[in-house]
């Protein structure tokens, strides 16, 4: 790759996802407002669409306050350690036909390795603030990120097994053909892919600290978690880092399960590949916003139990389902496809029902309010 192309990729990624950050903040606030039966921001510009600009000016001109007892160096470095590596995640994502900044053999591994830095950054932020809420938030965040990294990685293993490669471009190529001559062969349209996508979405929501997994920043409990002692530009950097992390993992979800830049049906394959990537990307971001508007926050022990007792076993079983799907590919008899579907769906479905019921422990007793009646 010539230096000029490399610079173009860098500038393009930073410009597109930087402005996507601004757009997502306003889109998220507007959508949340709509879903909660209120207006959302509507004062700056027509329909409030210039709100991100106002936010940016406010953030950049705010006074930067560092607590006197804080560990000054670490307090300063933490937002940089969070925000800088996140950009690297976009290097391996194939945004379109032949539009990928770096073709690594081990692209998926690279993606997860880079994400590891954010845990350290969160710890640095929480510890260096010398504030109990910050430290509590950081401990919660790390416990959560470590726990949900396991199902996140395990849910992608099925895709790697099927494509036979860790390279994200190869994984997209593996989903490029069309079934029955018109329907795309996305991983989503297989039983293991459907289950894997669900598990991936849950784990990805938790990894990016979004509601209903936003315990590290639970406002009603620990102020703002590890962000408590940050203000102005550094606070904005943390938000940028979190949203970029969300974008990166969304792009990964599109690449792994939704066929990357391929069109959903063959008749629509004439549209530019980047358009399809952007459309799927925007749809997934909307799902994340939707979940935030709908679901209440979990408790910490529920959160960890959910990861270790429910998600991890299910991701492991999903790998078995993918193996069954793979080894039944040679079946040629009448209705083989339907049999494979039923078989693989049963492998995941029965443990799902059984685990879900046994973990719930029967119907919950009616809650008694001692002081509120």
């Amino acid at each position, binding site marked *: 790759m010539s230096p000029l192309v490399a610079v173009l990729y860098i500038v393009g990624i930073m410009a597109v996802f930087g402005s996507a950050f601004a757009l997502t903040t306003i889109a998220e606030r507007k959508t949340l407002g709509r879903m909660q039966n209120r207006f959302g921001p509507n004062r700056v510009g027509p329909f409030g669409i210039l709100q991100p600009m106002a936010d940016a000016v406010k953030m950049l001109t705010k006074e930067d306050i560092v607590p006197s007892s804080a560990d000054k160096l670490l307090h300063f470095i933490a937002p940089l350690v969070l925000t800088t590596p996140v950009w690297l995640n976009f290097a391996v994502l194939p945004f379109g036909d032949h539009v990928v900044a770096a073709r690594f053999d081990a692209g998926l591994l690279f993606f997860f390795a880079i994400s590891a830095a954010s845990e*350290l950054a969160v*710890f*640095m932020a929480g510890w260096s603030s010398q504030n109990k809420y910050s430290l509590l938030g950081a401990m919660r965040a790390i416990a959560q990120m*470590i726990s949900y990294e396991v199902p996140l990685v395990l849910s992608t293993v099925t895709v790697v097994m099927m494509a036979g490669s860790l390279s994200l471009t190869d994984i997209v190529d593996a989903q490029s053909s069309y079934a029955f001559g018109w329907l795309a062969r996305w991983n989503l349209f297989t039983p293991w892919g459907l289950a894997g996508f669900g598990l991936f979405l849950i784990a990805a929501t938790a990894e990016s600290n979004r509601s209903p997994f936003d315990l590290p920043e639970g406002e009603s409990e620990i102020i703002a978690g590890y962000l408590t002692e940050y203000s102005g530009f550094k606070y904005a950097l943390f938000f940028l880092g979190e949203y970029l992390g969300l974008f990166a993992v969304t792009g990964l979800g599109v690449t792994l399960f939704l066929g990357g830049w391929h069109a959903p049906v063959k008749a629509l394959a004439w549209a530019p590949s980047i358009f399809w990537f952007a459309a799927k990307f925007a749809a997934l971001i909307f799902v994340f916003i939707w979940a935030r508007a709908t679901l209440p926050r979990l408790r910490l022990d529920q959160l*960890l139990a959910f990861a*270790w007792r429910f998600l991890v076993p299910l991701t492991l079983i999903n790998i078995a389902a993918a193996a069954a799907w793979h080894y039944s590919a040679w079946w040629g008899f009448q209705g083989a496809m339907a049999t494979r579907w039923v078989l693989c769906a049963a492998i995941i479905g029965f443990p799902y029902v059984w685990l879900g019921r046994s973990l719930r422990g029967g119907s919950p007793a009616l809650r008694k309010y001692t002081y509120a009646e």
Partner: protein
Amino acid sequence: MLSNLPFLSCAVLTLLAAIAAMTLRNLVHCALCAAASFAGLAAIYLQLNAEFVGFAQILVYVGAVAILIVFTILLTHGSDVKAGEPVRSSSLWTGLGVAAVVLSALVAPITRSASLWLLPSANPQAPVAAIGRVLMTQYVLPLETIGLLLTAALLGGVVIAMREKPARKTPTKPSRAPSRELSHAA
């Protein structure tokens, strides 16, 4: 000299971070410097075109081991700085002795290894697919043995962390330290 610049900068970063990890007074700073030195080592692997080893180094050491160390420090309140106390440990000479023994045990086989005298190939490559294939065929027994060992270590960690109670009333929460090891095994 100039062509060695990337290697030299990575090596200097790794060594400086390692020295800082041993000499700084605050344990959390030491742990973070250790993480930086792990990352520097990963950069050196990447320069040698060892993609897989480099990424695995970051994933396992920066992502898992450093976090584990930091958690341990926080849970044991080791981060309280004691002012005026010398950094020099009382067991300095023991540590140096152990280090010397380990070093000699490593140096002896390395100098005797035949691969040291091989000419470097023009474009060293270790594609991930090839590594995976070899791991799953030729080295599948060692791999599975390591998996078994890690599982045993995990169970041991759970047993150590478990508090013995005569009658269990509340279900025990998953403890954090062993959970980190599970992701290794997984």
